[in-house]
């Protein structure tokens, strides 16, 4: 993948990535040097509310991009739209997005995946009454045994089946699921299912993987090793776009951060720049996002009360805004 990026030797080198992104102005909708995904004017309304309204967004190839934003900001809906699981309300009036030079605006979810953009779901979709191994095997693309006519002749697909199984075992080992390979996926814990889903998505060797809150419910040690794994994928040339609420994770691995709020992209930039952006702090992070609430020093009465007071004030302000909105809607209807 690196040969397509102009002038950068390999994106495995952090300095190279910084250099690559240094030329990009940190503002919403900024153009990237070599975008793998370009999105234009996509809007999704659910009745009265506009869940997603993205004017322009580009995702740079070969790096890890984080998509952050408050609950209900439209991150999942945005994922659904570009992976073909949902249709934009603005379809036909300018909504367009292309992946790797190919327009995907009219493509079904399965073709999007075949094109090399594979996603996971926030609410995990494991195939419960199938074994973990079978789940993994379904991740692999282009299996000749899935052709109805060939399927009855085992010699035609036995070899490929073995290869796919080997690959699945390797991935399962990396995701610490190998001992579970013959268990039903439905018997896995919530965190294990997240892992399984991620491993399954990787079975297809995608060009770009989109992870919706991959670390939610995964224990710290495993999160560490998975982050290492995601970075390794990036270093091999895969593009990663992920949604995450854990700011430590975002800071730790993302090369670029996109912030969404109320459906719009409100900020973009390297993690540090974005997280010191006052608008982002107000809308999402909160003033104390750098403070570890588990830290003993914070737990002195005074500090805690102060934070609580600020949070209350914040909520009150939000509620006031919400109520105002509701009133407006009420008036309309």
């Amino acid at each position, binding site marked *: 993948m690196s040969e397509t990026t102009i002038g950068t030797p390999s994106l495995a080198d952090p300095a190279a990535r910084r250099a690559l992104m240094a030329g990009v102005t940190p503002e919403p909708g900024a153009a990237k040097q070599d975008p793998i995904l370009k999105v234009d004017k996509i809007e999704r309304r659910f009745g009265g509310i506009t869940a997603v309204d993205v004017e322009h967004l580009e995702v740079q190839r070969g790096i890890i991009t984080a998509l952050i934003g408050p609950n209900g900001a439209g991150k999942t809906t945005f994922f659904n739209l570009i*992976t*073909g*699981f949902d249709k934009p309300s603005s379809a036909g009036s300018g909504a367009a997005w292309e992946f790797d030079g190919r327009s995907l605006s009219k493509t*079904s*979810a*399965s*073709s*999007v*995946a*075949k094109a090399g953009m*594979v*996603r*996971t*779901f926030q609410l995990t*979709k*494991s*195939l*419960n*009454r*199938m*074994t973990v191994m*079978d789940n993994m*095997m*379904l*991740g692999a*693309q282009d*299996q000749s*045994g*899935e*052709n*109805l006519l060939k*399927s*009855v002749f*085992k010699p035609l*697909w036995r070899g490929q*089946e073995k290869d796919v199984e080997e690959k699945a075992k390797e991935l399962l080992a990396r995701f610490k699921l190998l001992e579970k390979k*013959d*268990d*039903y*996926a*439905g*018997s896995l814990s919530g965190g294990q299912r997240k892992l399984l889903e991620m491993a*399954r*998505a990787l079975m*297809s060797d995608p060009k770009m993987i989109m992870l919706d809150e991959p670390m939610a419910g995964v224990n710290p040690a495993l999160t560490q090793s998975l982050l290492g794994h995601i970075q390794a994928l990036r270093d091999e040339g895969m593009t990663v776009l992920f949604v995450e609420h854990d700011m430590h994770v975002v800071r730790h691995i993302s090369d670029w951060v996109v912030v969404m709020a109320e459906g719009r992209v409100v900020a973009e930039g390297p993690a540090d720049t974005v997280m010191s952006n006052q608008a982002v702090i107000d809308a999402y992070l909160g003033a104390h996002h750098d403070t570890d609430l588990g830290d003993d020093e914070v737990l002195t009465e005074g500090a805690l009360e102060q934070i609580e007071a600020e949070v209350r004030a914040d909520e009150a302000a939000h509620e006031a805004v919400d109520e105002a909105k509701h009133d407006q809607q009420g008036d309309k209807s």
Partner: protein
Amino acid sequence: MDTILDILSAVIREAISPGTAAVAIAVIGLNLHFGYTGLLNFGQSGFMLLGAYGFAISLVHDVPLPLAVLVGLGLAFVFALVLGIPTLQLRGDYLAIVTISAAEIIRFVGRLSNLKDLTGGAQGIQGRTYQPAFVDLSFFGDGAWTLAPFNYTDVADGAGWVRALGGLVFAACIVATVLVGRRLKRAADPTRTAPRTGLDGTLGKVAAVVLVLIGLYALFFAMPVTYGRSGVNGWWVRAVAWTLVALSTLVVYLLVRSPWGRLLRGVREDEDAMRSLGRNVFAVKMQSLVIGGLFGALGGMVYVLASTVQPDALGRQITFFSYTALLLGGAATILGPVLGTVLFFSARILIRESARAYVPDSIMSAQQTEQFSFIVVGVALVLLVIFRPQGILGNKRELRFNV
């Protein structure tokens, strides 16, 4: 004693009848739909009826037999496409509604008096108008034949105890098969830790097959049945029907163990997940609907081989029988459909004949025993779903994760 033997004889005759084999084939198709793909097809009887009409009408018009079979299958193919294209994109329940109505439409069209020249209207098509083409193919010869040829009458002048011994061997074989089967199932459980012993592997499977064969022989040794070798309702049609059952089972086995079968189960579990993995869910469901429907049509043709084409005989009732048999045997299992169908029809006859023999006419007339047998079967189904929802051969572990 004689009454009991008569009843048992009737049960065995029903168990091996072409009608039972025909429904078994249709249930094998339904298993592909419902058991493996999760498609709620409530119109399997429609596929059967189309197969039967296509086959019989072609034969009546002197179309060669192989072509007539193809006509029946072709009709079912088109029917599957017509049902599938609009409904398979929608949520599962819609297919159920559409299939049940479509099957009824076919039945009513078949009954139309305007079509009397073609379908024979409500009377249907007489067997003798199309059966000869099939019966003439028989190379079984003339005369009668008894299964098993060497039976209790050949030992000790057919003394009662020889017969009883045969029955005992049969019962013992059933019990032993169940025990071996349970062991095999436990051994197949990947979470189990106990070491595997002799009967857990291939040896166990061989033992199960041998036991079943001995059991079947013992059954026919004690309860021999006699039919004409050829003829309209003889061994020829039975042999063909049960061979087709075996072939259908084999084909489904080959299909579902393949990566294609994995696609079916994936679609059953979660369509969106399959889409996110780049699979064309609609195509998979369509393939399943078509193939299961073709089995339905084949079942329909076998069904009319030894009877007549009667639209009302292949109505909703057959669909519900099929579901009952499938749940009884175990959905998403290879042998479940056949076992379930045989047990379902045998049990019904057992109840009906027992009621006929032992309940005085003043309490229950012959017609009422028929209805009574359905009531008991219905109650049995309810109990089955409550106490053994996975069916006889099904895997209880799977049910725990029912979503």
